[in-house]
C-alpha cells in the first residue's frame, strides 16, 4: 500500500530533480517517459478501484496521494507555459471556413496548418490529464472512506456528510440495456428551450443542428435529415411521421419546467417498443399535473431566439389535478456558411394541458396539445407552415400486488406545408394494451397494439408521393419475460410480432442476460433482431413531381434488418461516482440503396455491413457542490453495396456520422442561490459531405434572486464565432455563437 501511495508522487520528484519542468530546458529523459508513467499510474488506480468495488482485491483501494493531482496540475501548467513557438492555428481555424469543402480542399488546408509539435501535444494533454487525475484520486479516496467508515469512532461518524445524489435508481442499474436518463433539473440548469437542445445532454445520441429549425438526431449512426432508425415518444405518444419514419423536430412543443426526465436508450428495443426502435428510443416523460401546480411564467431572449412560456396548474378535487400552458417563440434565420441567410426565420405558438386522476387502484392521464408555426417566405420556396393537435389518454389499474393492466390511446393530427421539402397532412390513431404480472421468478409483460394512419402529401416543387393519399394500419403483439435465474443472474426474453402494410409480418426477438456483481455493478449482454419496416418515403417518393422521373419510388423496397450484439458494464464506483460502458456490433442487412432501373432511381435494399462502437459515460460528485459528467461515443462504420447494386453514391446516403464524439460537463453550486454549468462537447469530422470537427463550450449561470424568481444567463459555443454541424439538402448553415438571458417567475 505504501508503495502505491508513493508511486504517483515519485514521478514528480524525479521529474523535478532532472529539471524536466520546462520543455526548453535540458532533461535527462524524454518527456513522454513521464507521461507514460502518469497514465500508467492513473490506469492502475482505476483498475484497482473497479475491482474493489466489485468485491475483489484488497478492501482498501490504493490511494493516489492527495498531493498528486496538485503536483500534476502544477507540472502541466509549467510545461504549458514553456511551449516553443508554433504558428497560430486559429488563422486556419474551422470557424473561418466558408461553404462546403471537399475532402481534397480540406486536406490541402490541413497540410498548410503547421502541426503542433509532439512536445506541445504532450504539454497540452498533461493539462487534460490533470483534470482527470484529480477526480480519480479523490473518487478513490471516497471509495476507501466508504469502505472504512466502520473504523471511525462514534464522534467521527457524526461529522460524515451524507449525499444521496448520483446514486441512480436501482431499477436503472438493473436494466440490461444501454440507457441514459436526462433529468428535468439538468435541462432547466442548462437553459434548454427546445427538445433537440435538451437531447444534447445524452452522450449516447448524435445531435446535429442542420439550420435554425431542423436537426439530425440519431443513435449509433445513420444520422441525417431523414434519420429513420430512432423512435421518439412524448408521454407514450410516438412523434415521428409515418411518411418517412423520422421526426420533424421543428413541430415539437417543449416546456422545460414540465419535464420529469428523458430516457434515452441506444440500441434496439424492438420487443417492447416496435419496429422503429432499431438504433434507439427516446422517451420524454413529463411531470404529473399534481407536481406542477400554481402559476409559472418564464421568458428567454437572446441573439438567436426568444421564447415565452406561461403555465398554470390547479386541482379540481382531491384526486384530480390539471395544468395548462401556452408557449410562443420566434427564431432568427440561419446563417449560411457561404454568407447570407436561408430566409427561414420562424415563429410559432403552442398550447397544451395535462390532467391526472388517481383513485384507489386506478390512475388516468390525459394529455393534449395544439401548435401552429410559420417561417418567412424563403426565396423561391415560400414559407413553411405547420399546425397540429393531439390527445393522449392512458388508464392503468393495479389488479393486485403482482399485476397491473394499462390501456393507452392517442390521436395525432399534423399538417406541414413545405414546398421545398415534404408536405404532409397526417392523422394517426394508436391504441395499445399492456399487462404485467410477477409470478415467482418471472416478470411477465404482454401486450397488443393497433395503429391507423391516414396520410396525404401534395406534390411540392421537388418531391411528390404517388398515390398522394394513403390509409394504412399496423398491428402488433408482444411478450417479454424477465426471469431471475439466481439472485445475481437475470434472463430477459422478448418477442414481438408486428404487421405493416408493406412487408407483412416481422419478428423482433431479443435475449438479454444481466449479471449483478456485488451490489454496485452489472455486467450485461444482449442479442436482438431489429427491423425498420418500409414507410411511404421508401416506396412512394417521386422526383421531380412529373415524369420523366429521376427517382421513381421503391416498389421492391422491403424491411431493413439489424442483428445486434451488445456487451455492457455499469458500476457505482462509490456513493458519488458511477460509470457505464457499452460495446456493440450492429450487423445490418438490406439497408436502403438506390438502383438505376430504366434510367431512373428506385429504392432497393442493397447495402449491408456493420457499425461497431463504444458508448461510455460516467459522473462523479466529489463534494455536494460540484459534479462532473463525461461521455464518449466511438463509431466504426463499415457499410458496403451488395452484389448487383449499381448505386453510384453508396452508403454515404444513409447518414453522415462522426467517428468520435465526447463531452464534459461541470456543474457547480455556488452557495444557496447560485449555480453554474460549463459544458464542452467535441464532435469529430463528418466524412461525406465533409463537415469539420468542432468543439463547443456552453456556459450557463442561474441565480435564484428570490424564492419565486430565477434569473439565468448563458452563452453557447463561447470560444468560436460559429460552427457547422450538418449539411442540409443543399446548404450548410453556421450555428453562431449565441447568448441568452432568461427570467422565470413562480409566485408562491
Amino acid at each position, binding site marked *: 500500500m505504501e508503495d502505491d501511495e508513493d508511486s504517483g508522487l515519485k514521478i514528480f520528484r524525479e521529474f523535478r530533480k532532472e529539471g524536466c519542468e520546462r520543455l526548453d530546458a535540458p532533461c535527462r529523459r524524454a518527456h513522454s517517459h513521464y507521461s507514460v508513467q502518469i497514465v500508467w499510474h492513473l490506469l492502475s488506480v482505476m483498475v484497482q478501484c473497479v475491482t474493489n468495488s466489485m468485491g475483489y482485491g484488497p478492501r482498501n483501494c490504493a490511494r493516489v496521494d492527495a498531493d498528486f493531482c*496538485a503536483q500534476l496540475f502544477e507540472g502541466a501548467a509549467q510545461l504549458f507555459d514553456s*511551449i516553443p513557438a508554433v504558428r497560430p492555428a486559429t488563422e486556419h481555424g474551422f470557424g473561418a471556413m466558408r461553404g462546403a469543402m471537399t475532402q481534397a480542399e480540406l486536406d490541402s488546408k490541413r497540410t498548410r496548418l503547421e502541426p503542433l509539435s509532439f512536445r506541445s501535444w504532450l504539454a497540452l494533454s498533461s*493539462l487534460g490529464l490533470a*483534470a482527470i487525475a484529480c477526480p480519480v484520486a479523490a473518487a478513490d479516496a471516497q471509495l476507501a472512506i*466508504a469502505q472504512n467508515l466502520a473504523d471511525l*469512532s462514534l464522534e467521527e*461518524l457524526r*461529522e460524515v456528510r*451524507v449525499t444521496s445524489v448520483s446514486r441512480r435508481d436501482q431499477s436503472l442499474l438493473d436494466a440490461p440495456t444501454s440507457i441514459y436518463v436526462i433529468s428535468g433539473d439538468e435541462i432547466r440548469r442548462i437553459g434548454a428551450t427546445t427538445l433537440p437542445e435538451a437531447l444534447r445532454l445524452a452522450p449516447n445520441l448524435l445531435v446535429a443542428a442542420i439550420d435554425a429549425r431542423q436537426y439530425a438526431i440519431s443513435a449509433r449512426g445513420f444520422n441525417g435529415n431523414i434519420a429513420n432508425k430512432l423512435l421518439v415518444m412524448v408521454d407514450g405518444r410516438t412523434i415521428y411521421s409515418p411518411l418517412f419514419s423520422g421526426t420533424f423536430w421543428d413541430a415539437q412543443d417543449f416546456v422545460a419546467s414540465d419535464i420529469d426526465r428523458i430516457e434515452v436508450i441506444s440500441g434496439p428495443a424492438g420487443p417492447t417498443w416496435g419496429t422503429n426502435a432499431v438504433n434507439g428510443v427516446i422517451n420524454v416523460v413529463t411531470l404529473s399535473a399534481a407536481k406542477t401546480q400554481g402559476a409559472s411564467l418564464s421568458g428567454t431572449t437572446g441573439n438567436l431566439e426568444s421564447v415565452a412560456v406561461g403555465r398554470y396548474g390547479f386541482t379540481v378535487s382531491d384526486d384530480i389535478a390539471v395544468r395548462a400552458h401556452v408557449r410562443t417563440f420566434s427564431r432568427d434565420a440561419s446563417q449560411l456558411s457561404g454568407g447570407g441567410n436561408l430566409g427561414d426565420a420562424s415563429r410559432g405558438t403552442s398550447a397544451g394541458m395535462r390532467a391526472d386522476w388517481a383513485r384507489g387502484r386506478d390512475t388516468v392521464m390525459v394529455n393534449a396539445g395544439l401548435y401552429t408555426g410559420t417561417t418567412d417566405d424563403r426565396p423561391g420556396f415560400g414559407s413553411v407552415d405547420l399546425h397540429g393537435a393531439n390527445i393522449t389518454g392512458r388508464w392503468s389499474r393495479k389488479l393486485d400486488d403482482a399485476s397491473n393492466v394499462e390501456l393507452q390511446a392517442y390521436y395525432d393530427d399534423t399538417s406541414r406545408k413545405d414546398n421545398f421539402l415534404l408536405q404532409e397532412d397526417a392523422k394517426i390513431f394508436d391504441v395499445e394494451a399492456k399487462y404485467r404480472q410477477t409470478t415467482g421468478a418471472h416478470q411477465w409483460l404482454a401486450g397488443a397494439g393497433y395503429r391507423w394512419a391516414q396520410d396525404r402529401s401534395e406534390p411540392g416543387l421537388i418531391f411528390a408521393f404517388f398515390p398522394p393519399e394513403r390509409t394504412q394500419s399496423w398491428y402488433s403483439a408482444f411478450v417479454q419475460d424477465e426471469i431471475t435465474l439466481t439472485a445475481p443472474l437475470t434472463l430477459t426474453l422478448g418477442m414481438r410480432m408486428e404487421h405493416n402494410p408493406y412487408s407483412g409480418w416481422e419478428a423482433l426477438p431479443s435475449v438479454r442476460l444481466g449479471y449483478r456483481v456485488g451490489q454496485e455493478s452489472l455486467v450485461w449482454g444482449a442479442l436482438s433482431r431489429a427491423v425498420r419496416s418500409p414507410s411511404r418515403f421508401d416506396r412512394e417518393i417521386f422526383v421531380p413531381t412529373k415524369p420523366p422521373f429521376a427517382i421513381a419510388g421503391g416498389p421492391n423496397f422491403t424491411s431493413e434488418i439489424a442483428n445486434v450484439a451488445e456487451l455492457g458494464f455499469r458500476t457505482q464506483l462509490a456513493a458519488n461516482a458511477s460509470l457505464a460502458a457499452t460495446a456493440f456490433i450492429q450487423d445490418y442487412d438490406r439497408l436502403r440503396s438506390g438502383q438505376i432501373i430504366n434510367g431512373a432511381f428506385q429504392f432497393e435494399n442493397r447495402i449491408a455491413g456493420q457499425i461497431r462502437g463504444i458508448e461510455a459515460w460516467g459522473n462523479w460528485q*466529489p463534494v455536494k457542490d460540484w459534479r462532473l459528467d463525461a461521455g464518449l461515443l466511438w463509431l466504426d462504420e463499415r457499410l458496403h453495396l451488395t452484389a448487383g447494386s449499381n448505386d453510384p453514391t453508396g452508403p454515404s446516403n444513409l447518414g453522415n456520422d462522426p467517428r468520435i464524439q465526447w463531452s464534459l460537463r461541470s456543474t457547480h453550486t455556488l452557495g444557496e442561490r447560485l449555480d453554474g454549468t460549463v459544458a464542452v462537447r467535441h464532435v469529430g469530422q463528418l466524412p461525406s459531405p465533409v463537415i469539420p470537427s468542432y468543439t463547443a463550450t456552453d456556459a450557463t449561470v442561474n441565480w435564484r434572486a428570490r424564492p419565486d424568481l430565477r434569473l439565468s444567463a448563458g452563452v453557447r459555443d463561447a470560444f468560436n464565432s460559429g460552427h457547422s454541424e450538418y449539411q442540409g439538402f443543399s446548404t450548410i448553415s453556421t450555428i453562431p455563437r449565441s447568448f441568452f438571458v432568461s427570467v422565470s417567475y413562480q409566485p408562491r
Partner: protein
Amino acid sequence: MKTARRSLHGLLGTQQRLALWLGGLAVAMACLDARAQITAAPDEVEAAYVHKFLSYVEWPPRVLSTASAPIVVGVAGSDRMFDLLSAIATSHTAQGRAIRIVRLGKPEQVPDLHLVFVGKDAWGDLPAWTAASKDRGLVVATDAPQGVDRGATLAFVQLAGKIRFEASLSAAERAGIKLSARLLAVADRVVGAGQ
C-alpha cells in the same frame, strides 16, 4: 521566457488561454475541496453506526452465554443494509466476538438475535419488532422517522446533511439491555431518561 509567452498567445487566442487557466483553477480548487470533505451515502453511515452500537451495548449473560458466541444482527426491510453489514462483518468484530448478519422476514418467528435493524420496507413492522424485543435482550435500531418515539431502542435521524442517532432508555430497559454512557453521550436525544 519571452518566446514562450509569445508562443502561447499564438497557439491559442487570449480567450481560450484565459478559459484554460480558469478551468484549471476550478479543477485545482475542487481538488483541494474534495480532500477536505468526507462524504458517504446515508445507508453506509448507518451501517457503520450499527456496527459501532454493538460495542456499546451490554447484553444479559443469558443471551450471550459463551465467550465465543457471536453477536447476531438481523436485518429486515433493507437488502442494502444487509449487504453493507455483511461486508463490515467479514473484517470486523465487536466486544471481541464475531458478528453474524441474518436476513429477516416478518417478525412472527424471531430467531435468536441481539440487534435488529428495521429498514424502510419493514417500517410498518416496527411496533411488532419492539413488542418482540421485550425481555429478549434485543436492540431495535431503525431509520424510521420518530423511531425512538415509536418504541425503537436506537433510531437514526438526518440533521443538516449528517446522520445522528437518538436513544430510548425505556426501550432498552424493556428489552433488558444496558446502553453505555459513552453511547448516550454521543446520542442527539435520549428519551425515557432518569429511570
